[in-house]
């Protein structure tokens, strides 16, 4: 056990720090609050810059334009990005989830065709997994792909697709064989979103904004060459994408959470509770300290999981505890924020008395989604029960 950085890790971090100091845009603050439609070209340009500096996908193998970074180095990467308040990257799904899946399962032609443009943000990727009747039970999905010569004909509907409105390509899970058990008849297709028959609609969520889209496919023709992995082996391909989703995301969240709690502590000196500053209210102090502590534990859990993966070579189902831990914690942080702000907590962006221009009222609503997206807390607990503890499957 040694939590000091190794010489290699220090070198990695210092090199990144130097690069970021010279290259991170200074005006992100002016863009941050704008709708994604407006800021997207800005984010694309930022990713392009990272790509040119060799920093767009540090976790990827060197031969595909990454740095073959270890998990600890990846963690350092996100820490440094957060430390300088760097903007996010435009093609975050392509870099984080879909690129690694193509590297793992793609043909040489697919890798050559797609990987460079994912890195450079020239082509933005979205992910078509969930359907109206297939959420937690993803394998029951119904979007069908029927073979017709050297093409598949795709019909169906997807929901909760991030970046659908700007996506050039989509990693789509479809049913290629309806006559076998549900997990065994799925395949993954790489679909050009400009194909005739693809329709994208915004999905308005409870926060009032539309981060996600609904996708409709009507007789969309997809070349057989665009199957990712083997036909009818799509479940394994999709699960591998989901593993990337659950594994790496937590690392990026720690500093964001830390910034939130520090800001909340700062504000707790300003808001009154029972006749004195909230920071002096015993109950509020207890709740803030609890959140502060759990945010630290979240990082230590993460570091232990990374060390285990590094030792064993495979990301395990333990990633599920990270997902439960951060999503439920984030909701508690937002709840205590509301308690500190009292009636001001409900004010939305645009009201001149809204706290921090409404980021907390937004956060209160948005974090309800945290325990649902990327696998509900219930599904995560099922995963722990079955895959970690070895209890019999409940379904």
């Amino acid at each position, binding site marked *: *056990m040694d939590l000091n*950085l190794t010489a290699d890790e220090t070198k990695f971090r210092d090199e990144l720090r130097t690069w970021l100091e010279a290259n991170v845009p200074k005006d992100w603050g002016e863009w941050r609050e704008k709708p994604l439609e407006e800021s997207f070209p800005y984010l694309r340009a930022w990713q392009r810059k990272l790509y040119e500096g060799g920093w767009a996908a540090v976790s990827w193998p060197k031969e595909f334009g990454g740095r073959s970074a270890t998990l600890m180095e990846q963690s350092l990467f996100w820490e440094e990005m957060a430390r300088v308040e760097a903007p996010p990257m435009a093609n975050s799904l392509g870099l984080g989830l879909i690129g690694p899946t193509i590297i793992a399962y793609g043909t040489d032609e697919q890798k050559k065709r797609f990987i460079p443009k994912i890195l450079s943000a020239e082509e933005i990727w979205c992910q078509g997994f969930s359907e109206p009747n297939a959420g937690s039970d993803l394998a029951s999905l119904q979007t069908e792909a029927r073979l017709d010569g050297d093409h598949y004909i795709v019909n169906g509907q997807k929901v909760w697709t991030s970046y659908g409105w700007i996506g050039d390509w989509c990693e789509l899970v479809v049913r290629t064989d309806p006559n076998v058990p549900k997990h065994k008849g799925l395949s993954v297709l790489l679909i050009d979103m400009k194909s005739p028959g693809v329709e994208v609609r915004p999905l308005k969520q409870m926060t009032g904004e539309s981060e996600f889209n609904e996708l409709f496919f009507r007789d969309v023709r997809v070349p057989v060459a665009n199957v990712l992995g083997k036909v009818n082996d799509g479940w394994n391909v999709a699960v591998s994408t989901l593993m990337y989703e659950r594994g790496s995301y937590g690392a990026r969240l720690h500093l964001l959470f830390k910034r939130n709690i520090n800001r909340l502590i700062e504000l707790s000196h300003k808001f009154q509770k029972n006749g004195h500053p909230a920071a002096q209210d015993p109950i509020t102090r*207890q709740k803030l*300290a609890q959140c502060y502590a759990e945010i*630290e534990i979240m990082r230590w859990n993460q570091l232990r999981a990374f060390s285990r993966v590094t030792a064993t070579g495979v990301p395990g189902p333990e990633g599920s505890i990270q997902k439960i*831990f951060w999503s439920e914690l984030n909701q508690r942080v937002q709840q205590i924020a509301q308690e500190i702000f009292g009636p001001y907590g409900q004010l939305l962006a645009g009201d001149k008395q809204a706290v921090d221009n409404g980021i907390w009222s937004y956060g209160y609503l948005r974090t309800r989604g945290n325990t649902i997206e990327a696998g509900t807390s219930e599904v995560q*607990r*099922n995963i722990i*029960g079955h895959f970690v503890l070895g209890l*019999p499957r409940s379904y």
Partner: protein
Amino acid sequence: MQFGLSESQQMLKDNARKFFAGECPMEEVRRLMETETAYDQTLWEKMAEQGYTGIIFPEEYGGVGLGKVELALLMEESGRALLPGPFFSTVALAGAVIDAVASPEHKKKYLAPICAGDARSTVAFLEANSSWNPSEIQIAAANGALTGEKLFVPDAAVANFIVVIARNGIFTVALKASGMRITPMLGMDLTRKLYRIEFQNTPAEKIGDISALAKGFDIATTALVCELVGGMQRTLDITVEYAKMRKQFGKPIGMFQAVQHQCADMYLETESSRSAAYYAAWALEENAPDASVAVSIAKMYASDAARSVGNRGIQVHGGMGFTWENDVHLYYRRAKSSETAFGDSTFHRERIARLVIDADERLAKGA
């Protein structure tokens, strides 16, 4: 950066598990908990042979000279075994305090016999106000003698000497010192006996200043958290085994999600406690700037988690969980005793609040 165990750390942990499984299985725990002191001389000598009684102490006093992480792993395994008797009190508590506060002469006098397995000890801290804040201690030594009462002192009846925390210093009192009366308090944890100690003009030797106490207490607190982690792990293991085996409605109850989710939460709470405990141990070893906050985070989280894991474990066991015969309640009792020792979660949340909220205010005011 490597937050896993090294090969030698893993080996120490594995050996400790084997040692406790062989020398102190549950039948032995149950036998000892029915005795007056829960202490067994033969077991103690075997632990001394393993080097456990000197694990973190310098070699010049006969110790093994290992670090806080190694102590953490040993405590985790002793907690898993629900080891009865004064190991925690002697080594992780009294020994750590002496090591932190005493002069080389005093270490030779008090630490060396602990390392050799010849002496057992404990620390008397709490008084009637039950506060873990050193500034609220009432007892003070006058003319080299102590008068007053200490409460909730673990394992005092088998200690060769007792470390007493007074207002004006840290003292040792010998086993048969005049004017000292030790009487049992009937604590819930049957494996770690608690005592009331009355001092009436009892001769005491000063070994250090109270200002140096925090470091020793941080080590003891972290060790206790690790012991809790071992207890949580064992409770989880027993519970999962039971959920796989016990059938109702023709199916193992572990097939039902209501049961699975209880077990999943036990796992989450156990693993998170372990992360916090290991981090605190490492931070103490490295004298990291956030070591004290880390200790409070670990104690705060594990104090609540151990109770919660016990609650869930008993619930999943159903009627069996409510019987004397089932082992879960023995761990549950230890968890309650350890929950309040060195401050419960409320105490440590307030300590964290002082370190991070009040510090923020001072910062904001430019002080």
